[in-house]
Every structure is written in C-alpha cells, then in structure tokens.
C-alpha cells in the first residue's frame, strides 16, 4: 500500500504535518514533528529516484481519476532528481533550524514557523512532482505564500519590506505563469503537461501559443531571478531568518528553474522554434551578464549574507547558460550545477547562520578574527567558498567544467571566457571574507565567541562535506543530470 502511494505520500506527508504543527503549539514539539516528516520525505524521494532509475517514469492518478482529465503525479528522472534535492535540503535545514530559529524568531511564532516551513516544503515538492500544469501553479502559490511569511519572520524590520517586495514580484511571476497556462488550455483544452506536449505540435506556433510561451518564460524567469528580473532576491535572502535563507536559496529558485525546463522541453518541446530563438538570443546573453555583473556586485557587499545572495544570482546565471545552449552537454551542466549549487550554497548559508547565532551579525567587519575563534565554522566557509569558485575536487568545479565544455562545443568562446571570469570574481568575494576572518585580528571590543552548537554545526558540515564529496564522486550529480538532459531532449530516460 505504501509503495504504490509513494508519489502521493511525498506531498501529503508534509501537508498533513503542517496543520498538526500549528495544533501542537509548543515550538519544540512542532520542530520534532517537522524534522521527522522531512526525513520521511527524504526517504521517499530516495525511493522514488531509485525506482525511476530502475524502471522508468511513475504515474500516479490522484483520486483515481485517469489523466488527462484527473490530476496526474508524474515522476521521471528529472523531477525525481529535483525532489531529491528539495527533500534533502529540507531535512538538513530542519535538523539545523531548532537552535537558530529559537534565537531569531519570537517564541510565540515557533509553531507557526514550522507550519509555514512544511507548507513551503509541500509546495516545492508539489511543483516538482505534479504532471498537471494548473496543479503546478497551485503548488507554486502554496510555496510562494508560505515563503513570504517565512521571510517576514526575520529579526530585522526590513524583513517585512523585503517580504513585501518579493510578494509583489512573486505574484507578478505567478500571474504570468497562470495566464500562460490559461492560454495553453484555451488552445488545446488540456492541462496535463504530457498531453499538452503531445497536442501542441499539431497546433503549431499560432499567436495564442506564442503569447502563452512568452508569459510562461517571463513568469518563470522572475521566479528564478534571472538577471535583470532578480531585484527581489538580495533583500529577501539577506533579511530572512538564517534557516529560511539556506532553505529558499537552495530550493526555491531551483524549483523555478525546473518549471522553466518542464515547460520548455516537455510542454513546448525542444523543436519549438520560438524556444530556440529565446534560448540562444535571450537566455544565454542575459545569463552571461548575470554571471559577470552579479559576481562583481557581490564583491562590493558589506553584508556577507547579501554577498552570497548576489552570488546566488550569478550561479543561477551558470545554470541558465547551460540550459540556454539547449544541447545534451549544456543541459547536463545546468542540471548538475542546480544540484551542486543547492548543496554548496545551502551549506554556506547554514555556516553563516552559525556565525549569526554566535556574534549576532553578518557584516563583513564583524567577522574579524573569527578564523581563530570559530575555526570549524570558518573552515567550513572556506571549503564552501572553494566550491563556489569552482576549484578542482569540489562540486562547483564538476558542473562548471562540463559547462565550459558545452560552451566550447558550441564554439561560443566568449561565454567560455565569461564563465572563467566569473570564477575569478568569485575568488575575490570569497577571499574578502577569508581575509577578514583569518588575517585581521579580532577587535578588543568583540564579544567572546566560541564554536556554534553541534546541532547547527553538523548539518552545516553535512552540506559542506557533500559539496566536497560530489566533487569527487559524480555518478549521482552528473550521471543523473545527464540522464535527465537526454530525457528532456527526447532520448530515452
């Protein structure tokens, strides 16, 4: 019974735990339930991915209604991979969250915090698993609304305006997506994405379909914060509670990239003419600018959290370059970088959360001398930073290497040079932190700082360790990403 219902349980387990968390009222009990559920969701995601790799796509009919009329949950190699990323990060961040949230969020809001967190997890997993375009929009709204709430719980009062800014941009993005879905429904009469993919070629690129394509592209690019539609992201990440930043940075934008991939390659199909033009003439240049501009902006940030947020936009640029190439190598690089960056950036934000927990600030100047006082934490930051730069033997290197290969394959030397330049810029902004933390002595007025508690350090090290592990062992990240890329481009999954 459980095995047959795994796709549904993936979603409804965190979904039913969310209201239960609110009923529990006590923060610690809510946390324990949320952690248990997120671990179960992770186990389910692992089981689903293994099953998909063994025996191909899984289809689940929600409520027993057959697709294309009913809502279908469809797990193939691409979204099984995304589910695994989201569920894994969710579990690690929740394990980390208890101490961090206890300090950063008022006690009366703790059970509400875990409720919103689980709803956000449900929404993100739901977007990834569903095979129904409208259901995708509903889950996107669930995850977005709960993430606005989570961001607004930040200690800094500016968290409220940041959340509001995100709400406005996010709502515009979601509205564009639903308009696009509406136009597709108008011209095909179906909402099932596989069915849409089968029917659209016969209709051809009439004006309604082109408008749908434009709305979906812009909507998804707002959500995934592609330059120049990224302005909501730095503030939202900088002022949200540490655990929320780590969770959203490594899942929310990644799931939005998944939405784009799904619509581009499953619904419209890789042969859709407007798509090729968009990818080559719009996505690749914008993504390249994102890498260069946002890496440069990151160098000038005085707040390390904001710096990492800008670095995230640059890293999203790398993923979008790969996707923009539209080749097997390019898509492999994009999808693998999605995984590697989720692990690396999640780890870095968790490390930053440890620092905030200890010294109550993440301004660059306040980090002086931390290399001595919090050696384990700062060393984790250095390792994560190396992966961000793309030093060999780290996860960041693996996907960037494939990305450069994809660029050379295309004869696109300009982009290849930009990718390398981006790495050099990353070296500068990571070095600024390392320099302050290791080479500058702590001021006498600095508060005493010891290591962060183990309950926070261990989860942070799990992700940082993973970013090293996946730099050596690439069969999961690169292997599955390549299978997903081939699947998207029409080969066998």
């Amino acid at each position, binding site marked *: *019974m459980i095995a047959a*219902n795994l796709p*549904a349980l993936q979603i409804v387990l965190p*979904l*039913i735990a969310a*209201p239960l968390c*609110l009923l529990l009222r006590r923060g610690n009990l809510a946390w324990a339930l949320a952690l248990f559920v997120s671990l179960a969701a992770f186990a389910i995601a692992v089981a689903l991915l293994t099953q998909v790799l063994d025996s191909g796509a899984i289809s689940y009919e*929600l*409520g*027993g209604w057959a697709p294309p009329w009913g809502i279908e949950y469809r797990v193939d190699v691409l979204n099984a991979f995304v589910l695994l990323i989201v569920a894994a990060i969710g579990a690690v961040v929740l394990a980390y969250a208890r101490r961090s949230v206890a300090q950063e969020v008022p006690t009366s809001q703790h059970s509400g915090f875990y409720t919103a967190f689980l709803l956000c997890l449900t929404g993100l997993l739901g977007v990834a698993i569903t095979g129904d375009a409208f259901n995708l929009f509903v889950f996107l709204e669930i995850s977005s609304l709960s993430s606005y709430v989570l961001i607004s719980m930040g200690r800094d009062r500016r968290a409220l305006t940041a959340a509001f800014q995100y709400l406005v941009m996010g709502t515009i993005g979601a509205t564009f997506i639903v308009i696009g879905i509406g136009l597709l429904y108008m011209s095909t009469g179906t909402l099932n994405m596989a069915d849409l993919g089968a029917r659209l070629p016969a209709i051809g690129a009439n004006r309604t379909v082109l408008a749908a394509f434009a709305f979906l592209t812009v909507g998804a690019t707002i959500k995934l914060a592609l330059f120049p539609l990224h302005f909501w992201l730095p503030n939202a990440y900088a002022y949200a509670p540490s655990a929320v930043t780590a969770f959203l940075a490594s899942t929310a934008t990644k799931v939005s990239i998944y939405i784009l991939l799904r619509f581009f390659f499953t619904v419209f199909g890789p042969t859709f003419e407007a798509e090729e033009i968009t990818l080559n003439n719009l996505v690749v240049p914008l993504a390249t600018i994102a890498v260069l501009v946002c890496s440069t902006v990151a160098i000038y940030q005085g707040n390390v959290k904001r710096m990492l947020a800008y670095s995230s936009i640059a890293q999203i640029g790398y993923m979008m370059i790969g996707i923009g190439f539209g080749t097997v190598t390019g898509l492999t690089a994009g999808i693998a970088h999605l995984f590697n960056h989720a692990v690396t950036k999640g780890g870095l934000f968790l490390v930053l959360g440890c620092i905030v927990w200890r010294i109550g600030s993440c301004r660059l100047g306040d980090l002086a001398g931390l290399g001595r006082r919090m050696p384990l934490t700062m060393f984790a930051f250095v390792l994560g930073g190396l992966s961000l730069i793309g030093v060999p033997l780290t996860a960041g290197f693996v996907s960037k290497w494939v990305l450069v290969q994809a660029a050379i394959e295309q004869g696109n030397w300009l982009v290849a040079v930009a990718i390398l330049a981006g790495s050099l810029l990353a070296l500068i902004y990571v070095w600024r932190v390392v320099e302050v933390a290791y080479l500058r002595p702590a001021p006498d007025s600095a508060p005493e700082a010891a290591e962060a508690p183990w309950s926070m350090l261990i989860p942070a090290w799990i992700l940082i360790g993973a970013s090293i592990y996946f730099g050596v062992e690439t069969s999961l990240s690169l292997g599955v990403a390549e299978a997903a890329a081939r699947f998207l481009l029409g080969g066998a999954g």
Partner: protein
Amino acid sequence: MPMIQRHSILRVTTKLLTPFILMFALYVQFHGDFGPGGGFQAGVIFGAGFILYALIYGIEAAEKVAPPGIIRVVMTLGLLLYIGVGYFGMFLGGAFLDYNVLRQDPVQGQHLGITLVELGVGTTVAATMITIFFSFAGRMRRAGRSG
C-alpha cells in the same frame, strides 16, 4: 456610551438576521452537491455572519462567541478533515482522495467523500475569514488603546 449602542435598528436587525445567515450558510454547504454552492461559498457566508455580529456588537462580544484560540484550532481541523479523507481512501486501498473506496457502492462513496471534503473546506474558510477579521480589527483596537 459607544455610538453603536444607539443604533437600535441595526442591533435588532442583526440579532434577527444572524441565525438565518448561519442557516443559509449550512444550506449552501450541504446543498452544494446538488445545486450551486459548496464549502467555500458556505464558509464565506458563515464567516460573514460572525463578522456582521462583530461589526454591530463590537469585537469583545464576538470574541466571547468565537474565542480566537478555538477558531484557530477549528481552522486547522477543517484542513485535517480534508487531508484525513484523502488518507482514508489510501488506507482502504485506493489512491489519495479516492472516494470510490469509501463505501461499497462507488456512487455513495463519491457522495460521502465530497460531502466530507466540502465540510472541511467550509470549516476552514469560515474560521479563516473570522481569524483575518479578528486580526485586523484587533490591530485597530490595540493601536487605539496605546494611542
């Protein structure tokens, strides 16, 4: 004496209308599977009944009828009823939210399933409406006291 104490017509009309509003909400709720209506609409009407009462008799009086703490629990219970029906279908060997398996006869199963799910929707929507109203109205009250 608050202004509202003088408006006898409003007070008497509200007192007369409130039970009918709530009754009509229940009609829309349970008639939803045969006619226009359903959980969402019913929940809004039910919540509107409470909000009307709160507007006329003041928020303290309304909070006595519907204590915010309890309303919040009710809000989650509705959602849990909905998801619970889904799980129950799964335990009986169907898919999530499969109503066919709830009874021997699939038609009766569908009927039972949609009724319960809509009841969950109605409960949550009504409680959420009331909670949203209380939070905004309560804000004004707190601001008024401090200022």
